[in-house]
């Protein structure tokens, strides 16, 4: 450790009057699986394209394995890339595309390439134009992993993959990290991030709003209390530390940052029947960072409400 695989200093990008990325300072260690999160349009793909030097920064600098990204011939010798939207040469077969991209990179371990093709259940004998989105994604994944690069820049790599292939991808990412390769993973799929990543950065409107280990994020986050009350729900929103209040069946769900004493006292006065506390789910943490509107929060809660894991997990919750 100690050597930064990816480093940025004040990295900024404007498109006309739109600020896509604003002063990003980032350092990703070798061998790390780093999650890069943020809502659509937050600047995730812009960051990755800046790291690849496909677009030029308005200000700031970036390095891959200590090489300035502008020196693409050296920097790209260290990395591979899976774009968010994979475009392939429609007339070429999958195998021809892998051969071409392999030739551009130099040495490719053909046995390893074939193993990847096998593991991702890719049929490389077809013309690319007949590939579905998932299959195009697989070509890009094989092409990225086959050179065993020091740094993998992955822009939503599992979009379009079925759950089985998603699991295979996670295994590949873990193996890569175990070999000392660095994985930079932009994603929307929080389960995937939770399962894979050591650290995450959260980007919003082009600015870095948080960068932390997942465990720390949870600790920093609020505690969720679910109370069943024998009586009307008291006013809670005015109490210190309360970040969200939602009515539930026969009670209330309240999120609190910091000491919960005042909230607990008021709930006790309101005829508390039962109280459960739990750590917030990753979704809840991210929604606070993403600054979702209450209606969006509710929609997410409704979408996940049916999942028993989140309701029953509670009870003081053993931190993972």
């Amino acid at each position, binding site marked *: 450790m100690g050597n930064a695989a990816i480093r940025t200093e004040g990295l900024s990008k404007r498109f006309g009057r739109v600020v896509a990325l604003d002063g990003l300072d980032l350092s990703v260690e070798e061998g790390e699986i780093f999650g890069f999160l943020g809502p659509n349009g937050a600047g995730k793909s812009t960051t990755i*394209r800046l790291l690849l030097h*496909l677009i030029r920064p308005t200000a700031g600098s970036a390095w891959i394995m200590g090489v300035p990204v502008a020196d693409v011939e050296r920097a*790209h010798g260290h990395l591979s890339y899976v*774009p968010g939207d994979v475009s392939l040469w429609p007339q070429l077969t999958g195998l021809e595309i892998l*051969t071409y991209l392999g030739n551009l990179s130099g040495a490719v371990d053909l046995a390893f390439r074939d193993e990847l093709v096998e593991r991702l259940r890719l049929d490389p004998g077809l013309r690319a134009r007949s590939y579905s989105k998932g299959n195009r994604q697989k070509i890009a994944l094989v092409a990225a992993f086959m050179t065993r690069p020091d740094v993998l820049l992955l822009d939503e790599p599992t979009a379009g993959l079925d759950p089985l292939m998603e699991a295979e991808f996670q295994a590949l990412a873990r193996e890569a990290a175990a070999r000392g390769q660095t994985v930079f993973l932009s994603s929307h799929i929080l389960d995937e991030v939770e399962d894979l990543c050591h650290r995450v950065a959260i980007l919003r409107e082009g600015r870095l709003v948080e960068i932390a280990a997942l465990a720390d994020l949870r600790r920093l986050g609020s505690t969720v209390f679910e109370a069943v009350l024998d009586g009307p729900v008291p006013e809670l929103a005015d109490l210190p530390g309360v970040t969200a209040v939602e009515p539930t069946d026969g009670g209330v769900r309240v999120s609190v940052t910091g000491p919960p004493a005042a909230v607990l006292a008021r709930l006790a006065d309101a005829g508390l029947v039962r109280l459960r506390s739990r750590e917030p789910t990753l979704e809840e943490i991210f929604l606070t960072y993403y600054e979702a509107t209450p209606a969006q929060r509710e929609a997410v809660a409704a979408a996940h409400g049916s999942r028993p894991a989140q309701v029953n997990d509670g009870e003081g919750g053993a931190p993972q």
Partner: protein
Amino acid sequence: MTATAAESPAPGAGVPYGRGRRAEVALARLSARLVRRGTGLLALTVAAYTAVEVFSYLGTYPDAASRARLATLQDNPALRMLQGIPHAIDTPGGFVAWDGGWVLVSVVGIWALLTTGRLLRGEEESGRAELVLASPLRAGRAVLVDLAVLACAITVVGAAVAVVLATAGTGAGGSVLFGLALAGFAATFAGVAAITAQAFEVRRRATGAAAAVFGLMFLVRMLANSSDSRGWARWLTPFGWMDELHPYRDPRWQALAALLAVPVLLGAVAVRLRRARDTGGALLAEPDRRTSRARLLGGPAAFAWRSTRGVLIGWVIGVAAYAFVIGSTLRTVTDLIADDPAYRKVLQALGWDAAQATKAYLSIMAALIGLLLALYACWRIGAARTEEAAGRLDNTLARPVSRRRWLVGHLLLTVAATMLIAVAASLALWTGTAIGGADVGITDTLGSVLNTLPVAVLLTGVALLLYGARPRLTVAASVAVAVTAYLVQLIGPALHWPRGVLDASPFHHLATVPAESFAPVSTVVMTGIGLALMTVGAAAFERRDLTGA
């Protein structure tokens, strides 16, 4: 369920799909949006070109005497082959229909086939058509709607020309007739492209096939007009229908009927063929599985060569076929020129004999080959742009490949491929002259064609500069520059345009090789400017962001 769900309207309520043809109207609006800018620009361009033609005619041939002299052009075989048979050229309208008509029909016809390929195959190839076909709209009907939109766009262009002609006082009847015929001509090639769009899975193939038909029809017209005995062949080609139309004096209604009926027929065939195939599929579908070939995958330049071979073969065949026809008719043409006392006088004034006249004519024909070479070079730089716009360049440049290495590969390929077409055209030209019995050697034909290469180098520079600075304009603007430059040299000198305007055209600086000796200074200057523009363009490309379509 929840309150929000209860408040939202029931599915389909308030949207009376299936009634009132809303899907058709929506598609028509969408397609109209896609073509309106191009249509507007083209209408303005052809209107301006027509106006220039009319006023140049009125200025150059103000009286009956000068117009009578013009009538001697009637029998010039070269002009008959290229521009068609002059008719009523003692009237401004008749002159424009003959002198400018072939340019107008070519430009509007090629635009029509490209636009049709884009709407009927490009939208499908990109997957966007599926969004449209998810609405209550059958595929055949969607083709019909797109064809209707194209017909409207083509009519606008034809009307623009007709209005200019009528306003300039060439006669309302003839103007309407010519505008209508121009629209019918363009619609015919839109119909051809509509059919090839059903036959091929990729847009490039579909428009390529339609362009091949266009080229073939032009060659048929050249042969048909090369001698009176072959005149019947005019009825085999839309170019011939335009020749037969005679809009400004004694119009032939059969020609107009052909120009209006054939597009309808072709459109109906296209709709019928569309119903017979799957969305995304084609009548001549290639199998999805094939044996992988590892050849020419070693690097960006080799890969670009691999990707471009098919189209290059098409260009070589097309340009060589044109050169062959020119060569094979060279003797007939120059014999006729030599027999004309008026021309002989002109030649004597220039100090030329008949052999030199042959060579001068060869040089004039080679200039058009030079234009084709320049157009190929512009298209070829555009192919590099397409690679970027489609997002495929990301795959290449995310590897240890510098932008310069990638671009230089494409540039060398452009130069090599242009040379290849030039040499093939020279050989075809020479083969044609040998068969036709003209007295020119292979060095003459090589010289005449290779002499035009500096123009191609210059236009490659223009295209590359655009690619670096304004990538979305790469092909459109460089092709516009090339065609304008050619037309300036074609029309300008005869109409005594100011020297400054003529000097702006690189074609104006070409020596009449092989009648004259090659001009080293202008060659070096043009090549130098071309190389400078390439350097600036490449530097701009290295500094800018990659951009999508």
